[in-house]
């Protein structure tokens, strides 16, 4: 389940539709402070089904919708699509095993209306979680390390650290 492509529009500072293509090997993301690098990480976390606005640095989930700049008005919805290569069919629910690629999408409107999509068709969060379960894509406790979190692992209390290993168990 390698990531082939990430597409964002209206997500945080990515006002315009942006496509990130991921190749083999190690991908680096660079740029000045505040340009949007960690927002790309947030987009991945969000489209994988993150339910906590706080873990995306927001106070409510609406905070992920492009809120405008000094010269641009806010947008009314945020959308992120992530496309995976299906390199391990056995790990997926039956209905997806024959496909070369799987695309998962998530949309949030300022009205509060929220949608998930699987291969462009409406789906529930439950379906999205089923897709990720077998491949371990959902184990973000140790597969996505947000900025500042590496320092917390050592200073955390012993009981809190347990969670990261539990995710792998």
């Amino acid at each position, binding site marked *: 389940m390698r990531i082939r492509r990430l597409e964002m529009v209206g997500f945080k500072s990515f006002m315009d539709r942006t496509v990130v293509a*991921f190749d083999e*090997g190690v991908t680096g993301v*660079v740029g000045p402070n505040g*340009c949007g690098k960690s927002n790309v990480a947030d987009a991945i976390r969000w489209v994988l089904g993150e339910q906590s606005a706080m873990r995306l640095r927001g106070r409510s989930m609406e905070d992920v919708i492009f809120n405008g700049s000094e010269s641009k008005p806010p947008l009314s919805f945020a959308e992120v699509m992530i496309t995976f290569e299906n390199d391990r069919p056995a790990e997926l629910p039956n209905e997806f095993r024959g496909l070369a690629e799987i695309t998962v999408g998530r949309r949030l409107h300022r009205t509060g209306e929220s949608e998930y999509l699987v291969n462009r068709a409406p789906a529930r969060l439950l379906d999205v979680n089923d897709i990720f379960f077998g491949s371990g*894509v959902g184990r973000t406790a140790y597969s996505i390390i947000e900025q500042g979190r590496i320092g917390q*692992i050592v200073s955390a209390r012993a009981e809190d650290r347990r969670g990261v290993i539990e995710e792998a168990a």
Partner: protein
Amino acid sequence: SRERFRETFDRVNEKFQQVFPRLFNGGRAGLVLTEDGDDQQGGVEIFAQPPGKKLQNINLLSGGEKALTAVSLIFAIFLIKPSPFCLLDEVDAPLDEANVGRYNELVKEMAKASQFILITHNKRTMETVDTLYGVTMEEPGVSKLVSVRLSDGSRSAAA
């Protein structure tokens, strides 16, 4: 279940004991599961001894040593139960040149089996990666993605 956690814990601990000296170029480290209370589950204690130093309370370690110890643990878990991809946001920020070099070498090796995405300000990390994307904000408040350079000469489309 408690057995499954215990089994995973033991495997992670074993791997952690291998990864730590790899990243620190020596030294040793380990995990200890503290006693379970009646209602509480045991916590995970970390012991870490950089090369040539004495084993002390982990809090006395330096900022960079703490970060590298945490990276060793994360990588140990990842090696036991790999995810298809791993995204690391500026974990190399507190590391000196020697440690960044070893970190990047291990990432390169792990990238044969999983996809790695590194957000970084570090020049050495930038030199190690295979594909490099730049995020810019020419227009304040509006992010754009650009392709910076690729080691194999091909181009990634970034719209």
